[in-house]
């Protein structure tokens, strides 16, 4: 029972050390104050214990000076902790540009992971060491949470929207991947591994290990699109785009019934009524499954909704395809 009994988690990502330093600082302050209060209480209780039944001590009603001291010092300490917490948080919530992008779909009770080159995995994620990895995540059903303790990252995975997080592993090995948001019966079984490899081993793994027959979920009546070995997400997306007939309205150039999608990703779009939105993953997803929610100005609201007709994986493939058509200028500094 005692073997492999750790008291502290492994640190295996670039931010793990930063989080740990903040933790030690906070724990240090906590231990200091707990000991201070604890020993004062202890010493006073002994030193001033009641000696005779009727003794009444002299009153000490208060001291403005002391009250100020123990209001201001904790306040300053709290603000220091706050500032440090914010700086770590910014680091964890802003993926560096040029990160390798991986899609995560949570489902009761498994993790489905898709590499950009089309490689799919279940409950296992292989990544190269030393490379920033950005995860774009969504859920098929309830809220889950993607948690890798060794990397000190966690992010909720929500149905109906994409969330992101990122990490850069600093050493090779196998690290627990947990679901941290309670998601039903087998919540505690929704665990897996992140397997960090040397880049060359990773290349080798990509090339040689046969991909598992990843189940492609079914949505609606449509038969699933068979995926060819070695086909990238964007390529599958392109075939899907044609199969669903999207290309009858969305032509590469202006002139179709729908807006052209080339270069749309990341661009600011003007809607009917003058509002604008940035065409990020969540916007694209919504525009596919529920086009009436946000109508692009200048186009008739004629697109059919695909709600319930596409799986989350297929949506990811379509979005990857649209992204592969080029990025617009990001006009906001969305974190």
């Amino acid at each position, binding site marked *: 029972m005692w073997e492999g009994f750790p008291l502290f988690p492994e640190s295996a990502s670039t931010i793990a050390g930063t989080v740990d330093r903040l933790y030690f600082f906070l724990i240090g302050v*906590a231990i200091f104050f707990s000991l201070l209060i604890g020993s004062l209480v202890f010493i006073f209780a002994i030193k001033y214990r009641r000696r005779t039944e009727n003794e009444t001590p002299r009153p000490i009603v208060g001291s403005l000076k002391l009250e100020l001291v123990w209001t201001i010092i904790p306040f300053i300490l709290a603000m220091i902790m706050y500032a440090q917490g914010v700086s770590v948080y910014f680091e964890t919530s802003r993926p560096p540009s040029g990160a390798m992008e991986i899609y995560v779909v949570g489902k009761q009770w498994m993790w489905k992971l898709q590499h950009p080159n089309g490689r799919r995995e279940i409950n296992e994620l292989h990544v190269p060491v030393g490379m920033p990895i950005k995860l774009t995540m969504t859920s098929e059903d309830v809220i889950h949470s993607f948690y890798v303790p060794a990397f000190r990252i966690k992010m909720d995975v929500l149905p109906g929207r994409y969330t992101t997080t990122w990490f850069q592993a600093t050493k090779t090995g196998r690290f627990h991947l947990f679901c941290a948001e309670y998601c039903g019966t087998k919540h505690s079984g929704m665990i897996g591994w992140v397997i960090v490899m040397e880049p060359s081993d990773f290349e080798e793994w990509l090339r040689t290990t046969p991909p598992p027959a990843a189940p492609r979920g079914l949505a609606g009546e449509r038969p699933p699109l068979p995926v060819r070995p070695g086909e990238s997400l964007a390529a599958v997306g392109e075939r899907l785009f044609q199969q669903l007939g999207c290309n009858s309205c969305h032509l590469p150039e202006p002139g179709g019934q729908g807006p052209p999608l080339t270069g749309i990703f990341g661009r600011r779009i003007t809607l009917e009524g003058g509002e604008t939105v940035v065409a990020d993953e969540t916007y694209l997803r919504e525009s596919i499954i529920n086009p009436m929610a946000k109508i692009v100005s200048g186009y008739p609201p004629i697109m059919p909704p695909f709600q319930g007709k596409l799986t989350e994986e297929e949506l990811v493939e379509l979005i990857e395809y649209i992204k592969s058509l080029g990025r617009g200028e990001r006009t906001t500094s969305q974190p």
Partner: protein
Amino acid sequence: MSSPVKLPGQHYLNAAYGIKSWLLTTDHKRIAWLYLASITLFFFVGGFFAVLIRLELMTPQGDLVEAETYNKLFTMHGLFMIFFFLIPSIPAVLGNFLVPMMIGAPDLAFPRLNLASWYIYIAGATLALVAAVTGGVDTGWTFYTPYSSIYSNTNVVLAALGIFITGFSSILTGINFIVTIHKMRAPGLTWFRLPLFIWAHYATSIIMVLGTPVLAVTIVLVAIERIFRIGFFDPALGGDPVLFQHLFWFYSHPAVYIMILPGMGVISELVTCFSRKRIFGYSFVAFSSLAIAVVGFLVWGHHMFVSSQSVYASMIFSILSFVVAVPSAIKVFNWTATLYKGSISLQTPMLYALGFIGLFTIGGMTGLALAALGLDVHVHDTYFVVAHFHYIMVGGMVMAYLGGLHFWWPKMTGRMYPEWWGRLSALIIFVGFNLAFFPQFLLGYLGMPRRYHAYPEEFQVLNVMSSAGASILGIGYLIPMIYFIWSMRYGAQAGPNPWQAKGLEWQTPSPPPTENFPITPVVTEDAYAYSQEEAAVV
């Protein structure tokens, strides 16, 4: 009766006999007993679930109960402990008994409404019990959507209805306290002569009245989505999955202050009485209660740092969470300073109070780790959080409740509990508690998520320690239960003021007569004027 006791001839306990005289009473002191009996029951119901949870977690495989059963266990543990024990505990039992007595009033402002509150509470709790025995609920006490509104196939609606109904009991109690404190203070009892227990209950009542309706509305929305499939939270129906969390925590974070503020009020009373000193910095302690109540409404988003809430919203919730920690720190320092040069008697209630100060400090300091954005990302929804809130709610609130119960027990029954056993159980509880919950901080930082029915092997040692501590803690809770019942019949006679305490409730016989005070008292001195007596003697 064998022991030679000389209790006052007529008091509220023997003023009338028979079950009807209890069930139809409008005497706040008897209603306090109704609550005491019922919340004790629910404490042991919740405790029973806790025992099963800790047994299950002794082994990593999850082999004692099925995953589904385990999920129902922790859900019902949370539901009963929070909604049917912690929230009513101090306000409904000690508050009910003491608020009128401490301000020199014959009863609460609305005695019949007070009785109605108890019936509403019982109705809600009964529904929740029915939900528990007819299949249970597995959503967690937080009811996060869309799991609770669409996916769970357990008794969500019935349990939610139970909580919805119980909420009205809180609201009515809050209104009753506010009106009573405003309108029924004895002559001479100005706001700044009030005991701090009253200030704490005043602040708590504000939260109850303003916060609880939001919970009620939220629960109704979940039920509507479940029954009629109208989309509020499920994106497949056009809803927002995170909206629920905002609504839920808008009530439930302030609710943790409903749980802790009355406890702080009790501790202020105990610390002054057993050091025979006026509390250090009375008005700072009083105003810090109000500050906690107000700022406590603005920090709910600190439960949602990894929920996809915007980074800027998180920054604001984080800073406000740090700000709300300051008034709590002020109280801890003031209690400690009150001990300085006091005349300290380490009787059972005081042992609980000192234990509270230590455990609450640890609980509060670890709260800072959760309020710190980047660090919360790692420990959120792990056992670190479980340890944190048990330090506050069990280490803090339950200690305060037990301390208060020992302190006012002579007033409630006219009899003393056995002091030696009292101290022994306080000690057992303190040791058992720390062994049960301290390892969970380590588990959490190691990365063990909460609400796990099975877990990887490397977490086992700490879990076994925690289970061992929990059994010690359980024994610690059973002992007072036994000697309290024993003392009702055999305990030594207490007399009106066994602790030589200040405060109006000690100026009337124990147990008090139905109308509390034979003649309405007139207050001429500040609260806790322990040393004015000395001045008078000299």
